[in-house]
């Protein structure tokens, strides 16, 4: 299964990202940032890689700043 991980500046951003994605009906989950990824924040947003475009659209539409998006095999 292929997952995506969005890295964000802070936990406040992570929680806002989770909230707006849930409101848009997306299945996302907050996880501790995987160790192999270098991030500013200990919490990251995990999503199904197939929904990558929608997730980024929703974040941009709600003006949630994020740093990077990575693809991970689970």
């Amino acid at each position: 299964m292929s997952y995506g991980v969005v890295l964000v500046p802070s936990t406040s951003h992570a929680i806002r990202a989770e909230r707006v994605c849930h409101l848009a009906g997306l299945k996302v989950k907050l996880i501790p940032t995987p160790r192999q990824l270098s991030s500013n924040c200990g919490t990251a947003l995990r999503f199904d890689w197939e929904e990558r475009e929608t997730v980024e659209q929703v974040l941009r539409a709600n003006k949630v700043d994020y740093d990077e998006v990575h693809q991970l095999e689970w």
Partner: protein
Amino acid sequence: MIYFDNAATSWPKPPGVTEAMVHFLEKVGANPGRSGHRPSVEAGRIVYDAREAVAELFHAPDPLRIVFGANATEALNLALRGLLRPGDHVVTSSMEHNSVMRPLRALEEQGVSLTVVPCSPQGFLSPPDLEGALRPETKLIVLNHASNVVGSLLPVREAGQIARRHGCLLLVDAAQTAGDYPIDVQTEYIDLLAFTGHKALGGPMGTGGLVIGERVPVDELEPLKRGGTGSRSEHEEQPDFLPDKCEAGTPNAVGLAGLAAGARWVLETGVEHIRAHEVRLTQQLIDGLREIPGVTVYGGLDATRQTAVVSFNVAGLEPSEVGLRLDEEYDIMCRVGLHCAPAAHRTIGTFPTGTVRFGLSYFNTPEEVETALEAVRAIARANK
């Protein structure tokens, strides 16, 4: 006991506030935003809930542009000391609380120039007077939304329009209105809104914050303090983004859990509904006090143009004497004196004696107002 000191801090708190704080302490407990484990994320969610509830109440588009702090005073200090530099000009009114006046007087010492626009003896500000005080170098207008002495509502929307026309920012001190008077930072052109959590928002003491609008240059906003944020931990410099830039150190998460519950209760009850009840009580109080021989009531005497705060004096008695008798003989709690607002008392003509102040809330009743009126009647009669 009749509690009429809600303008200082509200009591009782709305249902659910205590429970939310107990829940945080007993079931969550962790430090928000510092770790990735579940209780820490849950604590972060609770703090975010407070941000979201407050944003909804004030119609602020982005919850992450709300910076939490200890109270309205801290928020006002952040805005004033964070934005004003020597050479800047700032305009305020003569009805301000010392939470605005003291930081401004200190900034004046450092080279910021200050204009205090006089208000009417009823505590109202004329928009043309305000506009006439602006200069090309004016950076900020700062006004309280309503006076903590007489409750008079200041024309913030007009001030916002004036600020836009002249290219400066508007900072509003909403200590006396947040939670029981409608506030819309977008349609009222409020660039910065300082609020406290422990008054009409129904939260505990030690909570408050600043709503930072899109027009405010965040890169020019100097934080009051720097320190750990849980983000960008590899850097020894403060993060440059909100809210972390201005939220160094572990937040009052248990207090914010209470604030979230209080603000949610306000949203569910409806600000207009809360306001309508308070307008009725306030007019009943004003009308009743005015009928008592020897009693002077201050302000506009029209509940629709003020908040649920009524200041008065009894001829021949010091405010402190009236307050003591109300407390000890009638079990009625109020606040007497200058209410941390010497400028406002000079404006309404009650400096340095001060006034007796009743501050009502949604939880007060017409029966309590009637009981208080009888008490003031008895005190005034005995003194004749």
